[in-house]
């Protein structure tokens, strides 16, 4: 069985007036169909660039090298027109900051149905709208039929993130890439969203690449873990293995630093 996503030696570099800086170096990983991968690492370690490289959505000035295969298809050499058909339909992406990722000028309904119609040229406007309402219901947005005509700013942070997910789902993708989908949210809301993603994966069997800097989140959601530092993959493996037997010192330090809610309490003020 071929891997759903197979990334080999991916390198992303920026060409700046001061020369070339590699922000992702020789990253390789594999994701089986229906499996989930967590990418962790601190801010600036190249997590987002890796995911954007997969989508071919790197910012101007960035170049990528290496191979990215989606269910056997090589994406790096795909003509733009074909790549467009991959985006949204086969691989969908959820971004971190849902407010800035939704266009403030259009209703959420339009933005969802736009995603729906992008890959169904025959779909009528009405069908797309119905699909949008359905998608919103699927992500548990109350009164979806009404709220489909609202603008992004009229939604709360958690709701917006749901809208983003609904949008990602409307193409029925095989692979979902979530780039820090809960960083901006409260713990309680974060939990709802994570539960929602889990529920959806259960329903659709889509693969998931989850990017975050919160190791605890990864430990709850991912089958495999990829730890990045300075653009390099320093450690990868099954979640249990990485968390219980970290090999790289960096991974260890990270795990050390994560505050834990269940740790035995140390004395007041920390008697260290």
């Amino acid at each position, binding site marked *: 069985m071929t891997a759903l996503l197979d990334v080999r030696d991916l390198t992303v570099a920026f060409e700046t007036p001061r020369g070339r800086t590699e922000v992702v170096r020789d990253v390789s990983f594999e994701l089986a169909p229906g499996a989930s991968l967590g990418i962790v690492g601190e801010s600036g370690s190249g997590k987002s660039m890796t995911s954007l490289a997969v989508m071919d959505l790197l910012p101007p000035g960035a170049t990528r090298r290496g191979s990215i295969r989606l269910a056997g298809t090589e994406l790096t050499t795909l003509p733009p027109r074909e790549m467009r058909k991959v985006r949204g339909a086969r691989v969908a992406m959820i971004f971190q900051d849902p407010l800035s990722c939704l266009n403030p000028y259009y209703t959420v309904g339009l933005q969802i149905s736009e995603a729906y119609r992008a890959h169904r040229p025959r779909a009528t406007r009405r069908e797309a709208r119905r699909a949008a309402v359905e998608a919103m219901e699927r992500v548990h947005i109350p009164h979806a039929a009404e709220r489909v005509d609202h603008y992004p700013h009229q939604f709360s942070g958690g709701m917006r993130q749901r809208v983003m997910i609904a949008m990602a789902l409307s193409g029925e993708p095989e692979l979902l890439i979530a780039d820090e989908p809960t960083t901006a949210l409260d713990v309680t809301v974060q939990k709802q969203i994570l539960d929602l993603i889990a529920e959806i994966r259960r329903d659709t069997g889509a693969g998931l690449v989850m990017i975050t800097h919160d190791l605890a989140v990864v430990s709850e959601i991912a089958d495999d873990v990829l730890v990045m530092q300075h653009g390099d993959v320093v450690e990868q493996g099954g979640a249990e293995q990485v968390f*219980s037997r970290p090999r790289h010192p960096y991974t260890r330090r990270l795990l*050390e630093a994560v*505050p834990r809610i269940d*740790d035995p309490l140390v004395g007041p003020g920390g008697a260290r």
Partner: protein
Amino acid sequence: MRATGLVKEFGGGGLRRRRPFRAVDDVSFAIPRGQTLALVGESGSGKSTTARMAAHLVEPTAGRIELEGEDVTRLRAEALARFRSRVQVVFQDPFSSLNPRHSVEQIVTAPLRYQGRRVPGGERAFTRALMERVGLDPDHSRRLPRQFSGGQAQRIGIARALAVDPSVVICDEAVSALDVSVQAQVIELLVRLQAEQQLSYLFIAHDLAVVRQIAQQVAVMSQGRVVESGPREQVFDAPQHEYTRALLGAVPRIPAEWDAARRAMVEQQTVQEEMA
């Protein structure tokens, strides 16, 4: 520091006679000397507003604040300056809370200058000493905030708070914006300083795991009210209020057995290294 029945209302009045919005509703707390009180709760629950009232940055609509037994709810000029030298604030975003156009030296001596006090030992020496205390390279005293990393910048903020030798430091999400490892360093610094100087902290956070590490007392806020408060153990181990339970339940956790296994491994390795 002790606060009783704090209320803050926003808006309202005016021509339209809108009903005011109660951001903080009857909040009371007490911070014993040398201890930390953590204020937790979801976004918008009124934590910052409470902190700002405690720091005398907004006037409370009602309620009373005492500092070492003295009523400090309403202060004017001189008394306010004295208050400022006893209560300081560390803000959430290190970069936004440091004036990007001022050097470290200007920033950390500002409280003294603004309060019209002499800088003991001259600006340069004073700054160097402070920077050393918070673990920054004293040679960087002429740099601007943007030449520092987030963690370093937050240390500058802490240094500024310490410049006037306060007895209470209010930390409004002082570590929330930082990466885990940096966060850990800053927390360590705060704890060390507390031990050294008998500081009291009003520590605001939404991350319960962080709170658990630093606070002796915890108050949980929701929609402007304190729904539960008490010693750390009590709140975390035996939460009474529904909301506190929901909050605790939502915290993502690394499975305990993985952690245990890792610790065991690390310990083993350390032993091995020591032996070697």
